[in-house]
């Protein structure tokens, strides 16, 4: 027998979409508060939200009439007609949230508008809404949600421990709060204050409070505008990268957004800095006109769709890349993740800044010196053979500001330890350079720079086209992006069925197997974009497939661990490395330089506790 479900059951089912756990209740309520123009939002949880969730704000408040409709499905004050969907600037707009919450809990809304003489409240128990009654209330709104899922025990059973639910809410609130520095946020759990984010602080301060000051110190500023688009925020140094993407955050017009290609663009900017499948940490705020972004894609509103995704990705990539480059991506003291533990010295990846004249008076060891060195160490004379020795590796053209740290080491005395590590004693501490990793970086950047400078990409044409079968989606993408790919050296044509014919490959990779190159192009990190549209990723991906090969080419043509280097070679290496874009990581993301500061050595030797 078929029957129409009563509205409260419909709402209970729909609630599953919106309300999964306390976390989702808090999200909906806080977003409502923000839309109501609140400057102060207090969230309180009892027993991880099982017993009660209370959200209090000083926002606009409900009129008694609105209050009567608050728990009715698709009742919203934010959207009157379909056309308004084009201009959604508020966070919540679907009108589902309160109805859904009301249908699976015992909820009370008490509210008073700022211009009203007194407040009112309305109660909803498992979807049955009571009458609106006068009640004492300060201006603003207080939503109290008790006994969540009391009428849907299956769902209640799926709740995690209070601690886990609390942690999720805390993380959520922190993430929401980053987009609204003008709002004061507080989170209390069982009477204890867990988070307090005062209004008016900077993004960095707020990140510090929410995620720890150690993390906040490792962030560089990002800022770039382009036409109606603007991105600003903070990008974490590569060392902060973590296994999950929970702190790879992107906000679009104040809303947390999970847009694959936008996040991928940011990840791309990190690519050379990160090793393996780790995710960068970043807090980026993207501002754009509301009609250039569609936020009505997902009930939880995490996904958005951009009118011009290519432009957005491009801006994010450029902004992040510029920020990382500007910082030299050299981690500061204390960032060490290598060899950390107990009383051992924390090894710091990268170098502390040294004034350029630091070594002017530094003592020089002599190659012929008889001072006994530990086995495995080799003393190298620092006798100056004149500046011409390094000239061979110098490139013409505009040079970026050299890395003062590596540049400062050039010409300084060193020992080559274990045939692989160049060890420098500097006033700032003991600096260790991995000769292979650093040379790999230098070689890689030289290959890439030449590739960039060549302008027109050279194509080795194929006499007999290589026929490769690819999936339908990949094929459509390859043919759609044909022109862009050809500009990067990949000449691909239709060959009927699921096959394409490779007619040419980048001349720089002439000996590579064409089919393997095409695979590398298709198997890049990102999924192929939608068919029939220009794909912002096509060019960077084609370039990436080429540059990827440079990694292994650089590895093969770099000095190896075990190669003996004399002082002229080391000087040349350091000088060129100082001009690299990312001198502190090898192309695979491994660090190239390590510093043990004086303080760390002192701690290790128990001179200082």
């Amino acid at each position: 027998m078929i029957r129409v479900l009563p509205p409260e059951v419909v709402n209970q089912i729909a609630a599953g979409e919106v309300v999964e756990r306390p976390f989702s209740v808090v999200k909906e309520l806080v977003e409502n508060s923000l839309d109501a123009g609140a400057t102060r939002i207090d969230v309180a949880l009892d027993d991880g939200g099982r017993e009660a969730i209370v959200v209090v704000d000083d926002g606009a408040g409900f009129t008694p009439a609105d209050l009567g409709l608050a728990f009715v499905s698709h009742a919203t004050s934010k959207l009157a007609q379909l056309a308004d969907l084009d201009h959604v600037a508020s966070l919540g707009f679907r009108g589902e949230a309160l109805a859904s919450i009301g249908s699976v809990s015992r909820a009370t809304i008490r509210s008073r508008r700022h211009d009203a003489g007194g407040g009112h409240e309305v109660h909803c128990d498992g979807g049955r809404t009571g009458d609106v009654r006068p009640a004492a209330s300060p201006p603003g709104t207080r939503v109290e949600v008790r006994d969540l899922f009391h009428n849907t025990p299956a769902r209640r059973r799926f709740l995690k421990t209070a601690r886990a639910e609390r942690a999720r809410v805390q993380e959520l609130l922190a993430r929401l709060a980053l987009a609204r520095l003008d709002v004061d946020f507080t989170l209390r759990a069982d009477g204890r204050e867990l988070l307090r984010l005062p209004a008016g602080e900077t993004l960095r301060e707020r990140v510090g409070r929410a995620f720890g000051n150690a993390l906040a110190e490792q962030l560089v500023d990002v800022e770039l505008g382009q036409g109606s688009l603007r991105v600003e925020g903070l990008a974490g140094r590569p060392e902060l990268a973590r296994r999950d993407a929970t702190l790879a955050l992107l906000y679009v017009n104040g809303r947390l957004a999970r847009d694959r290609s936008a996040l991928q663009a940011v990840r791309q900017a990190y690519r050379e800095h990160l090793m393996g499948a780790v995710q960068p940490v970043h807090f980026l705020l993207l501002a754009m006109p509301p009609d250039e972004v569609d936020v009505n894609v997902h009930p939880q509103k995490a996904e958005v769709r951009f009118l011009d995704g290519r432009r957005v990705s491009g801006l994010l990539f450029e902004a992040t890349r510029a920020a990382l480059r500007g910082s030299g991506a050299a981690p500061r003291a204390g960032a060490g993740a290598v060899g950390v533990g107990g009383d051992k010295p924390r090894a710091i990846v990268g170098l502390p800044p040294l004034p350029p004249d630091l070594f002017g008076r530094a003592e020089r060891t002599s190659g012929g010196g008889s001072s006994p060195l530990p086995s495995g160490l080799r003393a190298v004379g620092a006798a100056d053979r004149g500046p011409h020795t390094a000239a061979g590796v110098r490139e013409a053209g505009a040079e970026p500001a050299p890395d003062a740290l590596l540049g400062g080491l050039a010409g300084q005395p060193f020992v080559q330890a274990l045939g692989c590590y160049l060890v420098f004693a500097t006033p700032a501490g003991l600096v260790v350079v991995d000769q292979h990793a650093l040379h790999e970086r230098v070689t890689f950047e030289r290959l890439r720079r030449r590739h960039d400078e060549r302008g027109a990409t050279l194509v080795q044409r194929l006499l007999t086209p290589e026929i490769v079968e690819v999936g339908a989606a990949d094929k459509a993408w390859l043919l759609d992006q044909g022109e862009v790919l050809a500009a990067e050296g990949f000449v691909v044509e239709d060959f009927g069925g699921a096959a394409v014919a490779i007619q040419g490959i980048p001349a720089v990779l002439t000996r590579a197997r064409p089919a393997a190159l095409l695979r590398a192009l298709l198997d890049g990190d990102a999924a192929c974009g939608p068919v029939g549209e220009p794909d912002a990723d096509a060019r960077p991906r084609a370039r990436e497939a080429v540059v990827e090969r440079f990694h292994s080419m650089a590895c093969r043509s770099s000095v190896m661990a075990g190669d003996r280097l004399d002082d002229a070679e080391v000087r040349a290496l350091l000088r060129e490395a100082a001009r690299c874009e990312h001198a502190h990581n090898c192309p695979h993301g491994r660090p190239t330089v390590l510093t043990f500061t004086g303080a760390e050595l002192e701690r290790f030797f128990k001179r200082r506790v």
Partner: protein
Amino acid sequence: MKILCDRQQLQDAFSVVGGIPPVKTPNPIVQNVLLRAEGDQVVFFATDYELSARSVMASVQVLEPGAVLLPARETGQLLRELSEPTVSLAGSDDHRTTIECGSGSYQLVGDDPAEFPAEPQFDGTVELQVTSGAFLEMFRRTSFAVAREETRYAINGLLLDYDSGNLRLVGTDGRRLALCHQEIEGPDEPARAVVPLRALQALGRAIDGEQDAVLRVQLGDNRIAFQLGTTTVISQLLDNRFPAYEQVIPKVAETSIEVDRLQLERGVRRVAVLSSGDVRMVRFEFRDAALLLSAESSGVGRAKHTIDATIEGPSSAISFNPDYLLDALKVSDREIIRIDMTDDSTPARFALGETYTYVLMPISGS
């Protein structure tokens, strides 16, 4: 088995088969070479199941007929080191063979000859005959162009294409194509096979000393046999998916150039020094009865070199990977060569000899 033989003869006969045993195999017995003494000769036989070779050393003093297995790698290395004129080999019941030469004595542990794979018997359906030295020359002029990796086409082998008295060898790796042909004695029906490079390399070692002999080529459905005197090489064929090579040889050209081969080879070699390490490329400009070669290596330098040339058609320019070109120029024996080209997205054709054609795809975008 016990024999006394000439060292040089032994080395020659062994070298024909010594390269065939596989380095890695689940069946280690085939890492040996079989020696079988009978009458006044010794037969050498080795196989990796896909490719097998048989050679014969004649006029041997066989003191005791029989067969032994010798580990291919060690035996080959040892024989290369020997210098005295005579060598004696003596097998024992426990599959050990003692080689004595001068004041040295070497014992090698083999395996049971009865367990060794039998020599394949093979009669082809088509037989061709060609002078061994001429075949070797064709092989040298085409084998370098063979692809080293597997692709969709079976171009990791050399195409042997026979039709009405004309034998062609064709090698290509998708970027260039080398073709050599020769008029030979043979049947009326056409025959075609893609031969693994390794089989021809083994054959090449056998031909080295026998330039004027008759090489008999027998073709079957999936195997090929080469017979040169008492030496036989039998190989599985690669499948027939060879590209339609005739279609990629350009029939028309806008510009035709004649140039001295030695001058060109020398010029390209010099200029290529300054073709940068990451993209190997030499530019050819044809105008005013001259060929201007140039190359540039970013941050290293640039080179220009002019060669006299006869040019028909409009002035033009084209770029090639110099290594691909030099591979062919150095095995050409013609004094004046001819280049036919159109533009930088169509192949250029090099006439490098009466019977030798080379097709090279240019680098475009310069």
